[in-house]
């Protein structure tokens, strides 16, 4: 057994759906890749009647050469489904989850895995002939952006999301151009021809949009042993809401530390985000104490690593752009503490256990307690009662017979008439 190839990732998801048809749904992603590949995600949902479940969306494989990500997510789905069906707990090294934990996750959350965002890139990276150097490929395989030149093909899908995508306008000229993004198709961080120009990014967008109750989004990358949380464009600050990615008045001023601009994150929200990152980190480290750290994506040691158009920042924008959809934390795991995209399979198996322990830890953290479940059911019951009463009331007293704001309208009109008379006398 070793790394899954592109065909096997798809077959693994179909196989899990076939083996656990009552617990899973296969979700076909709508956008075929540039080479015509179609991808699937897998939804794990144990109790369809429970409406209050939060969703956790896990994605990987966006960078072709970061081989182990899809293997981590396929393994996660298999573990949860096997353990749930066997009424068993899960053990990843020294980190254990009880059978009740697994039942809670499967019955009271939606776990969505999209293991292979960029199958064209992976196929290219894994398809090198003897002596080739294409395993190091990072981007997708879009042939058009580079004008047909093989060496200039491809877009970095993780610079293609709609978060300050137009880096040349949105960021300060002093922000580090080597990390932000690039408009050069030959660059490894080429951001494409427009936000969501790439089918791979649109598939992730579609998937997240399909789950309005998504509360956590995690993009699995490699390497460095970090758990990164937003924001990635600038320092976090909680004092001035006007300093926000949504405010064009700050265009041209982002991406530099120690200046006037910092990206706004509400004071109450920051601890929630860092706590979730710590849950991921602690779950990973509990397996064999690998020393993963959680930190804001903007920082790199004593310097900065500003980025635009990344998935975790884009996911985090949802609660700012549309607060009615609820909070969605975006995170990035950089698995592997060693400087290597291609570990041996023996090393990779250990890393699968590490990262899956972190992800299951987050699932457990997100699982609603029984008190929340009962409150949710009660709330749903009251909603149904209120709906029925309103329907009955409207049938009995249709709006056309009393008019909207009827009594108020009469009071306001009387007041207006009095004021008019008073005003006329004074004026006269």
């Amino acid at each position: 057994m070793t790394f899954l190839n592109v065909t096997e990732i798809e077959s693994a998801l179909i196989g899990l759906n076939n083996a656990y048809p009552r617990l899973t749904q296969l979700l076909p992603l709508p956008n075929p890749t540039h080479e015509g590949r179609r991808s699937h995600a897998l939804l794990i949902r144990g109790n369809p009647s429970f409406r209050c479940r939060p969703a956790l969306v896990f994605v990987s494989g966006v960078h072709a050469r970061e081989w182990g990500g899809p293997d981590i997510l396929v393994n996660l789905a298999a573990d949860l489904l096997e353990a749930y069906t066997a009424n068993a707990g899960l053990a990843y090294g020294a980190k254990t989850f009880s059978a009740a934990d697994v039942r809670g996750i499967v019955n009271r959350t939606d776990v969505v895995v999209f293991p292979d965002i960029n199958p064209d890139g992976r196929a290219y990276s894994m398809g090198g002939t003897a002596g080739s150097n294409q395993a190091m490929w990072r981007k997708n395989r879009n042939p058009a952006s580079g004008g047909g030149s093989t060496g200039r093909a491809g877009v970095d899908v993780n610079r293609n999301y709609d978060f300050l995508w137009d880096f040349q306008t949105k960021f300060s000229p002093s922000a580090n151009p080597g990390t932000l993004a690039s408009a050069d198709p030959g660059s490894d961080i080429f951001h494409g021809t427009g936000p969501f120009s790439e089918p791979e990014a649109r598939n992730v967008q579609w998937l997240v949009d399909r789950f309005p109750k998504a509360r956590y989004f995690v993009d699995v990358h490699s390497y460095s042993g970090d758990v990164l949380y937003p924001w990635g464009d600038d320092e976090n600050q909680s004092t001035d809401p006007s300093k926000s990615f949504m405010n064009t008045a700050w265009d041209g001023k982002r991406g530099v530390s120690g200046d006037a601009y910092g990206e706004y994150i509400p004071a109450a929200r920051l601890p929630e985000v860092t706590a979730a990152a710590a849950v991921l980190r602690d779950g990973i480290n509990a397996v064999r104490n690998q020393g993963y750290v959680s930190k804001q994506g903007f920082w790199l040691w004593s310097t900065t690593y500003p980025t635009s158009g990344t998935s975790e920042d884009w996911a985090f924008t949802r609660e700012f752009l549309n607060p009615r959809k609820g909070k969605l934390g975006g995170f990035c795991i950089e698995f592997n503490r060693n400087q290597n995209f291609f570990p041996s399979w023996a090393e990779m198996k250990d890393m699968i256990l590490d990262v899956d322990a972190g992800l299951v830890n987050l699932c457990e953290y997100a699982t609603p307690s029984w008190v929340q479940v009962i409150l949710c059911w009660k709330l749903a019951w009251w909603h149904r009662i209120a709906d029925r009463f309103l329907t009955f009331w409207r049938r009995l007293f249709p709006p056309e017979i009393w008019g909207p704001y009827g009594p108020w309208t009469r009071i306001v009109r009387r007041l207006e008439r009095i004021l008019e008379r008073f005003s006329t006398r004074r004026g006269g």
Partner: protein
Amino acid sequence: MTDQTAEDSGPERADDQFAVKLKGNPEQVDELLRRGEFDIGDHPHISDNRDGTGWLDLFLTSRQIESLRAEGYEIQVSSNLSELARVRLADVGDGDRYDGGITAPQGLGRKVHRDTGRKPGGPTGKARQ
């Protein structure tokens, strides 16, 4: 080129990329990242030397290593990652171990029964539903 020979290293190509660690202070690291001409991985790792310098992980060709050394940078070369990748490619199959979905994968996590702590064992499949 490699100072520390990787177990899987083999013949080199001109465009092979080596996993290297480059010593620099924050200003030097920032300047190197700004050049945009080096492969810095994803969100790169820097190990702090606690003396105002750190070791930045990079993936460089032989020519880039020579050029940066000529600029005065101290560089440790750990492995030829391109060659290592070619070795690993031999382990990636072109078949389908799950037969188009007829067989389901098994997870690597240990399945633990609450009372006995025993592994449930056995393959997953429709029979288990």
